[in-house]
């Protein structure tokens, strides 16, 4: 019997069928959504005019721009603070290795509800409850932060080694001391990673909640759009991108200092970085 060996790296039949189905779905969905070539071409014409009107960006209204950006920053800072402060106890309550199930279930449900609502939807509710302005944005992003870092904190706490916790407990430490000296030191660097990630993400979202009236640069942006002030829109977008890039650099620096042990002076004191918080890396 001479069975030919399968060619290496052959694409399997299952994968082929999968790709075919995916392609078919794409065509079906595109036809359902009424995408036509004509529309696309007309759009490109519009797009050229649109971009023509966006450039050069118009920074003459810079006072409004700065005011919006500062408000976005305030929203991001306060929402991150609130989110982190609330997430800490909630995630301690939610970790199955420390708490009995009557405590973990409600905490987990809270995190799940916060996670599944989009910040903009939450912002609509808070605008209704506390009126237009920065406070609604802060509260909406606090909810979003609890949903996101609460989950990551919980997972980090559930992965700790219980030996150190037992050792601390064996010395007769109180519950608070077990948490402070047995649990937190093991998760601190990962917490810092998640917290900086969330601050970064809140900064991005804080530029958006303004679209529904919850303060920040988003409101200015939306108003400029509706007045067809496209050169001001371009100026706002460029400033948002710049702000977020600076934020990302700062976040990297914070991670370098707190996670990798970067300090002033000698660099050789740098200790090996602990496992990179993979979950935080997964989300951009």
């Amino acid at each position: 019997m001479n069975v030919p060996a399968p060619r290496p790296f052959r694409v399997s039949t299952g994968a082929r069928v999968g790709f075919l189905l995916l392609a078919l779905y794409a065509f079906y969905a595109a036809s359902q959504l009424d995408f036509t070539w004509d529309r696309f071409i007309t759009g490109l014409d519009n797009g050229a005019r649109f971009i023509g009107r966006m450039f050069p960006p118009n920074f003459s209204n810079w006072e409004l721009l700065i005011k919006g950006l500062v408000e976005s920053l305030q929203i991001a800072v306060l929402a991150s603070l609130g989110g982190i402060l609330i997430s800490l106890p909630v995630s301690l309550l939610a970790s199955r290795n420390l708490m009995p199930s009557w405590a973990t279930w409600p905490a987990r449900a809270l995190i799940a509800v916060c996670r599944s609502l989009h910040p903009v939807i939450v912002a609509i509710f808070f605008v209704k409850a506390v009126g237009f302005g920065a406070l609604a944005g802060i509260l909406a992003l606090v909810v979003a932060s609890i949903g996101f870092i609460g989950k990551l904190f919980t997972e980090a706490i559930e992965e700790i080694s219980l030996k150190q916790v037992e050792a601390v407990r064996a010395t007769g430490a109180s519950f608070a001391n077990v948490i402070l000296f047995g649990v937190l030191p093991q998760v601190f660097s990962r917490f810092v990673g998640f917290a900086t990630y969330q601050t970064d993400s809140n900064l991005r979202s804080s530029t958006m909640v303004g679209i529904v009236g919850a303060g920040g640069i988003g409101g200015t942006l939306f108003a400029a759009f509706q007045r067809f002030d496209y050169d001001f829109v371009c100026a706002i977008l460029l400033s948002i991108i710049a702000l977020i890039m600076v934020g990302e650099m700062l976040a990297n620096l914070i991670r370098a200092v707190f996670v990798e042990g970067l300090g002033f002076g000698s660099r050789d004191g740098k200790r090996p970085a602990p496992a990179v918080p993979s979950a935080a890396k997964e989300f951009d």
Partner: protein
Amino acid sequence: MNAVPREWHRYTSGQRLARFTFYFFIVAAVVASARTVEIIPEFLYDAPEQMKDLLTRMWPPEFRYYPDGIHDALIETIHIASLGTLLSIFIALPFGLLAARNLTPSPTLNYLAKLVLVSSRSVNSLVWALLFVGIFGPGALAGTLAIAFRSVGFVGKLVGEALEETPRGPIEALEAAGASTGQRVWYGYWPQIRPAFWSIVLLRWDINVRESAVLGLVGAGGIGMAMQAAIDLFQWERVAMILLSIFIIVIVAEIAVTALRKRIL
């Protein structure tokens, strides 16, 4: 010989100084924000009442509205999310390949690709949607493109990082055998990043289902448009029903992604 220090410190003084500098700046930022942020306290007093009012108006959700108002919009939302994700893969892959330092040995190209990816991520999908509504007019096309352009940064960045983390061994073996760049990518890099790639795409699809549900607020199609209409008309029972549908679809998407990830990885 250095004297053994009397006291043991976990961090060098330079490290501690760096940490305290950051603590200081964080506290300063919080204090400055809290002092200057504009909050109108009068609005706060009746917040509980307003909330109660809203919730009583939302109860009970109008279930009858689902077949004629919500179902089609919900399907449209899922189409927007899926098509946007598919489209973003095609745009993101070239930039991901260019951003990987081991694959593209040109710092200028790496930098340019990363700049494109960061810009894509910095602009929120709602803002992208505003732009595309301006260009293509209201509708699902604008939403799909917004989802695609926002996802490019996410998929491209993570694919670039996955490429940079691939072990050199198989690549060097292919190089030694005289493989071209295309062959190296297809036989050396791709099999190594495949699991990571699919999990990135699935994760992004999951996020996109959530995001496409709100794109309609700026006119970019999907269930958000139904929600905007209901909010504008103060039909809060319908809003409640729409929120319930979004909630369910988000959970279904998450369950589907978890199941698919288990099968693929």
